[in-house]
């Protein structure tokens, strides 16, 4: 089962739910893979503390120009939709940070002066920790190519009973990149006006992607009932309510698993996992 933990609003508890759910499922003997696709600020590993990590460069294609072969015709710059090239005289200036690797320039160059090179936009990291396979992407600071790195983390999907993707917040390209390939989406929200506003937006995206989804209300009891009312009206299942409890925040701040730190939490996550597995079976049927 491919599960994506998403939310419109940041800071609602996606990572907390993703990590604790992954560990709860692992402890029940399931083969679990956790993919942290929040590549601008990956943090699942902070709670799992892997001892050894396998790191490699996340590479994207970029043009390499052989100056001697270039006659300055300008076709490369003309085809580039990302404005990553400029031609001055018979020399091509490349702005790699604007390149989306579409291949247009090296395909169109009549002199074959441009070839496909590569550059690193960040790291791809894999680790095994406590029976759980963790993978995450870490985008270099100042880099804007979020979706390609998410796609590379997503491609590390292997053989598992349960693959959990921790998505970036919001409803933009990066969140959508993290949702692709999922069978079921868990939208984490909080019972506040901000939580509701962004839940409405996120649920709309998930609906347009035609993915089944349910809602986890974190910090339940902290706000009001509008999220509950909206879910009921929209027919969205509330999968779990995590009570507003200072001990959860304290465990998070220490980098501990909520499962181990807060009495009763292990039961909540085990129930959530079973509900999700049941939805997966229903979805496949």
């Amino acid at each position, binding site marked *: 089962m491919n599960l994506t933990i998403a939310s419109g609003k940041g800071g609602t508890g996606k990572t907390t739910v993703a990590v604790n759910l992954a560990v709860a499922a692992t402890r029940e003997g399931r083969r679990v893979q956790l993919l942290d696709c929040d590549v601008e600020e990956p943090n699942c590993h902070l709670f799992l503390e892997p001892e050894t990590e396998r790191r490699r460069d996340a590479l994207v294609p970029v043009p390499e120009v052989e100056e001697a072969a270039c006659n300055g015709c300008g076709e490369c*710059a003309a085809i580039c939709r990302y*404005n990553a090239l400029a031609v*001055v005289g018979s020399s091509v200036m490349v702005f790699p940070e604007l390149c989306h690797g579409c291949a247009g320039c090296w395909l169109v160059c009549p002199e074959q002066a441009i070839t496909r090179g590569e550059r690193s936009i960040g790291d791809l990291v894999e680790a095994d920790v406590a029976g759980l396979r963790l993978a995450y992407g870490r985008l270099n600071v100042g880099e804007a190519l979020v979706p390609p790195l998410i796609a590379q983390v997503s491609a590390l999907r292997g053989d598992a009973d349960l693959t959990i993707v921790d998505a970036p917040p919001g409803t933009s390209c990066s969140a959508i990149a993290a949702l692709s390939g999922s069978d079921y989406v868990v939208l984490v929200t909080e019972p506040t006006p901000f939580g509701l506003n962004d839940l409405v937006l996120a649920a709309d995206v998930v609906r347009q992607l035609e993915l089944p989804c349910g809602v986890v209300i974190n910090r339940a009891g902290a706000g009001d009932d509008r999220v509950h009312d909206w879910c009921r009206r929209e027919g969205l299942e509330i999968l779990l309510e995590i009570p507003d409890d200072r001990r959860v925040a304290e465990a998070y701040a220490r980098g501990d698993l909520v499962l181990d730190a807060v009495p009763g939490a292990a039961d909540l996550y085990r129930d959530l996992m079973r509900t999700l597995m049941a939805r997966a079976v229903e979805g496949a049927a």
Partner: protein
Amino acid sequence: MKIAVTAQGPTLESDVDPRFGRTQCFIVIDTDKGTHRVVDNAQNLQAAQGAGIQAAQTMVDQSVEAVLTGNCGPKAFKVLGAARIAVHVGVKGTVAEAVAEFTAGSLPTAAAPNVEGHWS
């Protein structure tokens, strides 16, 4: 000498556009002949990114020797520099006033971009 001024409208009475990459248009002036014409920049106004680079490319293609504008970022500055086009930033008033200042020699050449890039 051929120079270009970023302009908010298509006439010499239009105000100088403070933006280089996303200027409304360029007015390219031949200071020897006293003629001018308007060069469109609509495509760069719509660009998601790299407007400065492509506006600089337009300047290169127009074979101008100097650009008069409000602000110029690092990428555009790099392209203009490679083409040895002089950049004058902080230019205000109408296009005609800017050209008069330029021909009077009272506009200093920028040695570096005067604003940050918008991208990285």
